[in-house]
């Protein structure tokens, strides 16, 4: 249902604020509408500002310190008070957040009408603009029916009110107001919604004349989500893009300035919680999705995956598509596949694995590998081998002379050389010394004693010059390079004896 009625009041009522509050409350509760708001003219700014109001509509989450047995009216007035406090805390900024009482409302406790009511606090109307302004200027009541279809320019709060019509109610209320001028009323009228203007320099209390044109603001927005597509087309909050609230706020700015500024201020100060709730409670975006509630978790805890999945047809279509459908294609060819082609595939894979292993070993042997890809490994290895063979050449040629020299000098100095490198569990031993029978066997034996298992031996024997390159693997405790060198040197020394 929704109607708005704004009836101007040029009559002065010098009522106190509390009285007004009481009047508003009585009025809204008697007819059973959702809220009433009193707009007061501020002379300095020539604007109608929110002065007093009473909320009597649907409540989402009740937070109260009173015992359960309160009358509806008292509950409603307490609610109005709580809404007021909520508004104040929201606009006071984050510093005041901690000070809130446990019974203070937070945004997610609000229904849409309550939210609309809170937002009304922020509105101001400069007559003759806006609905209240127009009523004020014209000194006539304005009855707005079908507020949901009104252009934003006429009813600038339409954007925050989602409304729906109900014919009978419209007629009923209309009849009310047709009868209204005739009735003789008292201040605590039960029929009327009062939205009075007060001019400050007048101070009369003319209750019996209160019946003459009053400015009334009636409203009870509902939040069914049949809302005005046109109005909302520019307004787009995406719950999923909470990071982009700023972008969305920009879109808002064009449409309904005050409202958008209000919402954006709110959202800036409380980005995530407010945003996700404003989507659910306000549904401005016609999202197909609804907000997640923690109650769902309770049901989830009862869910036992193993039992359910095994017994029921879990992921039926997905499993079928992946596991069954491919085999629907010609069965004969599938019978061939597993035997022939799979074997081939497995063999191919093993070959590749071996290749990869060997590449890794090679990389570990070559000292200066820069990149880890196969091409670089091979290139670096080639360079290293070339370098080594050059070095061998040099050493051999230079060693020939000193070799002779040394032999002439005496047996104290020998030209033997032992190089040992151990990388992970791979051992490389390069040595040269003077040959003696049984030398190689002794070397291999001592290596075994050190826990080194020889895997490859390359030897060369020229002219009593023995050269060996031995590759091995460490088994068990890894000896240090020094230990190996010492042992080999020992052999060479012993062999000479």
């Amino acid at each position, binding site marked *: 249902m929704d109607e708005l009625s704004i009836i101007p009041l040029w009559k002065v009522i010098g009522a106190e604020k509390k009285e007004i509050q009481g009047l508003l409350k009585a009025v809204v509760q008697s007819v059973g*509408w*959702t809220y009433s708001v009193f707009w007061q003219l501020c002379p300095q700014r020539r604007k109608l500002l929110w002065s007093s109001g009473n909320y009597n*509509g*649907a409540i989402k989450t009740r937070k109260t310190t009173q015992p359960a047995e309160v009358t509806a009216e008292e509950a409603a007035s307490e609610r109005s008070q709580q809404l007021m406090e909520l508004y104040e805390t929201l606009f006071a900024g984050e510093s005041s957040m901690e000070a809130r009482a446990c019974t203070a409302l937070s945004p997610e406790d609000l*229904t*849409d*009408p309550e939210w609309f009511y809170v937002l009304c606090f922020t509105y101001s109307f400069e007559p003759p603009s806006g609905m209240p302004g127009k009523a004020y200027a014209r000194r006539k009541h304005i009855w707005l029916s079908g507020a949901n279809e009104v252009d934003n320019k006429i009813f600038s709060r339409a954007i925050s009110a989602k409304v729906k019509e109900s014919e009978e109610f419209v007629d009923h209320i209309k009849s009310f107001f047709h009868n209204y001028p005739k009735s003789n009323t008292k201040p605590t009228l039960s029929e009327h919604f009062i939205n009075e203007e007060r001019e400050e320099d007048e101070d009369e209390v003319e209750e019996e004349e209160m019946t003459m044109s009053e400015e009334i603001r009636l409203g*009870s927005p*509902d939040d069914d*989500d049949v809302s005005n597509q046109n109005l909302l087309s520019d307004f787009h909050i*995406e*719950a*999923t*893009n*909470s990071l982009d609230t700023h972008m969305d706020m920009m879109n808002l700015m064009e449409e309904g300035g005050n409202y958008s500024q209000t919402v954006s201020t709110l959202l800036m100060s409380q980005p995530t919680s407010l945003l*996700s709730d404003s*989507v*659910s*409670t306000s549904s401005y*975006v*016609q*999202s*197909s*999705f*609804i*907000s*997640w509630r*923690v109650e769902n*978790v309770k*049901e989830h805890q009862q*869910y036992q*995956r193993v039992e359910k*999945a095994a017994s029921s047809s*879990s*992921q*039926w*279509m*997905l499993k*079928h*598509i*992946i*596991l069954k*459908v*491919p*085999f*629907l*294609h*010609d069965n004969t*060819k*599938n019978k*061939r596949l597993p035997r*022939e*082609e*799979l074997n081939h*595939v497995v063999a*191919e*894979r093993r070959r*590749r694995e071996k290749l990869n292993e060997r590449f890794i070993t090679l990389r570990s042997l070559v000292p200066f590998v820069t990149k880890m*890809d*196969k091409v670089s490994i091979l290139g670096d290895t080639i360079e290293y081998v070339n370098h080594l063979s050059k070095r061998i050449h040099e050493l051999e040629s230079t060693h020939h002379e000193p070799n002779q020299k040394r032999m002439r000098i005496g047996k104290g100095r020998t030209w033997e050389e032992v190089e040992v490198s151990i990388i992970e569990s791979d051992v490389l031993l390069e040595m040269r010394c003077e040959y003696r029978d049984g030398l190689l066997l002794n070397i291999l034996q001592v290596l075994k004693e050190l826990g080194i298992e020889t895997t490859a031996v390359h030897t060369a024997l020229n002219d009593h010059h023995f050269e060996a390159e031995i590759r091995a693997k460490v088994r068990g405790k890894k000896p240090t390079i020094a230990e190996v060198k010492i042992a080999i040197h020992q052999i060479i020394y012993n062999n000479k004896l």
Partner: protein
Amino acid sequence: MDNSAPDSLPRSETAVTYDSPYPLYAMSFSSSTHRIAVGSFLEDYNNRIDILSFDSDSMSLKPLPSLSFEHPYPPTKLMFSPPSLRRSSGGDLLASSGDFLRLWEVNEDSSSAEPVSVLNNSKTSEFCAPLTSFDWNDVEPKRLGTCSIDTTCTIWDVERSVVETQLIAHDKEVHDIAIFDLRDKEHSTIIYESPQPDTPLLRLAWNKQDLRCMATILMDSNKVVILDIRSPTMPVAELERHQGSVNAIAWAPQSCKHICSGGDDAQALIWELPTMAGPNGIDPLSVYSAGSEINQLQWSASLPDWIGIAFANKMQLLRV
């Protein structure tokens, strides 16, 4: 006048539905036009691929009968070519996987859908190992990768209709493939192994906005596992709020933190991945309840405000 809580109101007015005469599985959004391809799921030889046209102004999904064509057995996946692939004729290229990888040209003027090529990756015989899924490379749209029950994955050059490479990296049938970087085809690393042995990973998806992130779902599991390739084997997050097994996942096309999942509980959940997870795990942002188990879910960059789901005989577009 009193209104019930907003959540209980039906939201189906905002979803656009297409009723199909048969159950649907495969689904793909075109990147250039507002067209959606849907594949049937009938357990016999005669299946169909239909092309629908989506009109966001009138909020309607209409089939284009002239573009409907047959497919042998259900297509395991449908995918339109990525936006970087422009056809000279202006139409769309649609690929379907089933017994072979087939390419179809869907004409601009809605006159017909013509088969372009049939790609068979078996060298030895004329029969190809049936394909479980495939993916089009966004960066180099001439490349397309398929995966098959014979444990191989094949990279195709669709312009020349030849095989580029075959990868043999799995021990068993390959269920899904997602391609990003094809520069280094030599290395494959095990990124994630499911915690229970013998629980295959059924589907996976790269996050196109944050390419280190991917999501996967396991067989008979209600979890969506989020992985970061920089820390293999340790999932970044496990989203465990579905009340049934998860069937499909899709990352948001324009946000690196949002993902949508659909499952046997008939729910589609939108999640936002926080930088730090709370003690009880991560809760979804929002939920949509469909009529029955959701079998397919697509979130396309061409329609970022809409998520497409397939359940029973229906395909629905949900507004985000």
